[in-house]
């Protein structure tokens, strides 16, 4: 009885994980620009991996394996935002962002300001 319940739980967790992969892929396919694709691509994976790892733990029915699964997820938590931030920053800076999709952009003013300042500094350097 207990075994059957745990088996069902394992299957549900696996299906959840697979659905999170599907969420990432559909988002990748349908979202209009790089940064919105990034939301779909990197984030559902965090929950997806958690569900897969939980499925493994439930299926093994042992506590000894739990620490290594937790470590695996913690490493994922630590590294996933790093790549997301780097790719997002590169995307913003290399103008892969479609500005027409943005309803507001607080960073734009700052960037414009910095650009004019850099241009002025460049002018001064070249006139010397």
């Amino acid at each position, binding site marked *: 009885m207990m075994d059957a319940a745990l088996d069902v739980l394992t299957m549900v967790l696996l299906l959840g994980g697979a659905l999170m992969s599907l969420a990432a892929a559909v988002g990748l396919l349908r979202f209009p620009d790089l940064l919105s694709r990034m939301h779909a691509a990197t984030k559902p994976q965090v929950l997806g991996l958690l569900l897969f790892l939980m499925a493994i733990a439930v299926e093994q029915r042992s506590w000894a394996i739990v620490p290594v699964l937790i470590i695996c997820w913690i490493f994922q938590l630590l590294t996933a935002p790093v790549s997301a931030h780097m790719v997002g920053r590169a995307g913003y800076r290399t103008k892969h962002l479609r500005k027409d999709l943005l309803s507001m952009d607080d960073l734009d003013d*700052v960037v414009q300001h910095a650009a004019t300042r850099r241009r002025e500094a460049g002018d001064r350097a070249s006139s010397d």
Partner: protein
Amino acid sequence: MMTRQRIPLRVELPLLIWLVLVWGALWQDFSLGNLVFGAIIAFTVANLLYLPPVELSGRFNVFYAVGFAGRFLYQLVLASAQVFWLALTRGPKLENAVVGVRLRSPSDLLVTATGHILSLIPGSLVVEVDRSTSTLYLHCLNVSTSDDAEKVRQNALRTEEWLIRVMGNREDLARLHPDAPHHSDGRKHP
């Protein structure tokens, strides 16, 4: 040879404990002998491959940490489902925004942790950080009005508040009072 400061053992201890735990977990063996061997390796690695130490505040509130973990998991599940739903129903017709949020704490650790947590939760993503004013610029899915943007800001500030309650130092805690002054004046809120 690099010149380096000696790090006091007390500062290094959290790192060493973490490394020993990772070692034990990877071997799936928490017996004493293995942990001692792991401790030797952790000590050697921490001293040979030098990195600047992370300055912790020395405070850690377990109750708030548990609450924070619960809140994080709840948001993770909710937001993952939301992103899935958006991908299926809205797809290409999506309105996003880059929202600037000025955090309260000047501490690098807290700004990093807040940005990290916000990046992990679907729907917001840190595009740029201004360290001098501890401002995060978040790219947010499906934000079309200034009300939505304000909601994002409030959520970011609440995340920071939780983190401060978990591991902030006393000055940060004092900043949580509504009438406390901001840490650097003269620049307007973005």
